[in-house]
């Protein structure tokens, strides 16, 4: 049962992603990306990481992608559709993809991400993984967590400064 769902979601991710990169219409591509995110959330649920699944939907699908769509819609999509779909770098991109795939394969083949066990919680600890996550985040990884939030704050201020700048022609 779980396996069937896993393959369903995995196929969904791959299919949606492939469709996404081949669409000429940016809006369609963005919507397919959302679909891929949703399937990914499904994978998280299967792995028992419900909270991550929720975050995946709320932040990526519900938040970030809406903003993407926003800015895409404000642009003239008609022009984008007529642009050339395949660029000359496609060979290079393919090579990079193969390389990346090989690397992932190699890492996973060595038996998972090293140190996952060392964090004290693994996938599958279903009851209370929110607490576990909170615990880890606010004790062990407090410093990286705070650094990340300061980074985000800086980015936000930067965005405001850029947007508020007087436009001179």
């Amino acid at each position, binding site marked *: 049962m779980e396996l069937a769902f896993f393959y369903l979601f995995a196929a969904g991710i791959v299919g949606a992603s492939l469709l996404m990169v081949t669409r000429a219409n940016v809006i369609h591509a963005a919507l397919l990306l959302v679909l891929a995110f949703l399937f990914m959330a499904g994978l998280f649920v299967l792995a028992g990481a419900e909270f991550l699944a929720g975050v995946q939907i709320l932040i990526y699908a519900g938040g970030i992608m809406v903003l993407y769509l926003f800015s895409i819609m*404000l*642009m*003239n999509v008609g022009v984008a559709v007529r642009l050339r779909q395949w660029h000359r770098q496609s060979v290079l991109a393919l090579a990079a993809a193969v390389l990346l795939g090989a690397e992932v394969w190699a890492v996973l083949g060595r038996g998972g991400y090293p140190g996952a066990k060392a964090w004290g919680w693994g996938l599958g600890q279903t009851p209370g993984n929110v607490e576990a996550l909170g615990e880890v985040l606010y004790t062990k990884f407090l410093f990286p967590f705070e650094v990340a939030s300061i980074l985000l704050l800086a980015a936000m201020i930067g965005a405001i400064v850029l947007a508020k*700048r007087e*436009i*001179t*022609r």
Partner: protein
Amino acid sequence: MFEVESSTRVERSSVVPGTEELIINMGPQHPSTHGVLRVILRLDGETVKDCDCDIGFLHRGTEKIGENITYTMFIPYTDRLDYIAAPSSNLAWVTAVEKLFGWEIPMRAHYIRTLVAEFSRISSHLLWLATHALDIGAMTVFLWCFREREMVLDLFEHAFGARLTVNAFRLGGLFQDVPQKFLDLSQEFADLFPGRIGDYETLLTDNRIWLQRTRGVGVISADDAIDLSLTGPILRGSGVRWDIRRAQPYAAYPYLDFVVPVGENGDVYDRYLVRIEEMRQSTRIIQQCLAQLPKGPVSCKVPRTIKPPAGEVYHSIENPKGEFGFYIVSDGSETPYRVRIRPPSFVNLGGLKKLALGGLVADVVAIIGSIDIVLGECDR
């Protein structure tokens, strides 16, 4: 109806993404332009940079018609000018023509005219309040106002047999005396109405959202309002205590006691308060008219063929919307040589640009509402 003209396109080549101006086209079939008014707005973001009105969709050449029919025949045409307050338009025309002739009108006719004109003011202000509140999103006020307006229209039906275009008055007085039932029902309405005004006020006057949407919106100073020839509640909203009923009284107004309310800030909210208070004062006038109503004939002696002396008169009255006047040039024949209608909506709408400039788009809806236009009289 909204045209977003390429303003939203992001140019890749420019270093700073330039913001273009946006032209928005409201009307002539927009729900909040109150008829066939087309307003073209040029926006910078949400701020109104320029504003132009396209009017005339309802132009029927009433002034030209007036030059070709007799003085009596023109009365029904005046109904179709300010059709929200038809008796007011009738009154302006008959008093102007009577001034041309120099007739003495019986007191009873004067009082009934005043009474009906005040009813028309209430009816007009109710319609204004209903639509204005609906424009700003207050839906219940709309239906409450229509409930009372229905009563006023029923009163008109009792007295004149019509509800909207009542053709209420004749040259020299009235066609016939009003029935007693009309007076009884008027008394009933006048007793009931102040409480109903209180009802509207509980929903709006101290409502935070209403205050935020109307206070400081569409402000015009007294000097600017006078310069732009604005009249009626807009002028009074800016603090000029000028009401033709008081300044140059006609009909029975010299004998009646009422207050001319004025605002302070000249914003949408003050205009709202002024009109609300005017409804109260109108009710007072109605009470007084009913109490003082003299007995006697309702029409003076009117010759069979109406031929005024050659000459010209201008006479204006205080319409619910502002100064509503007629300038009649007579060449001594049965038809006027020139009929000029002084339209309050037309002139007041000319001030829209001044009011809307610098405001936001959503404010324009509130401002158009607060000007209180009726296109029938604006376009004539």
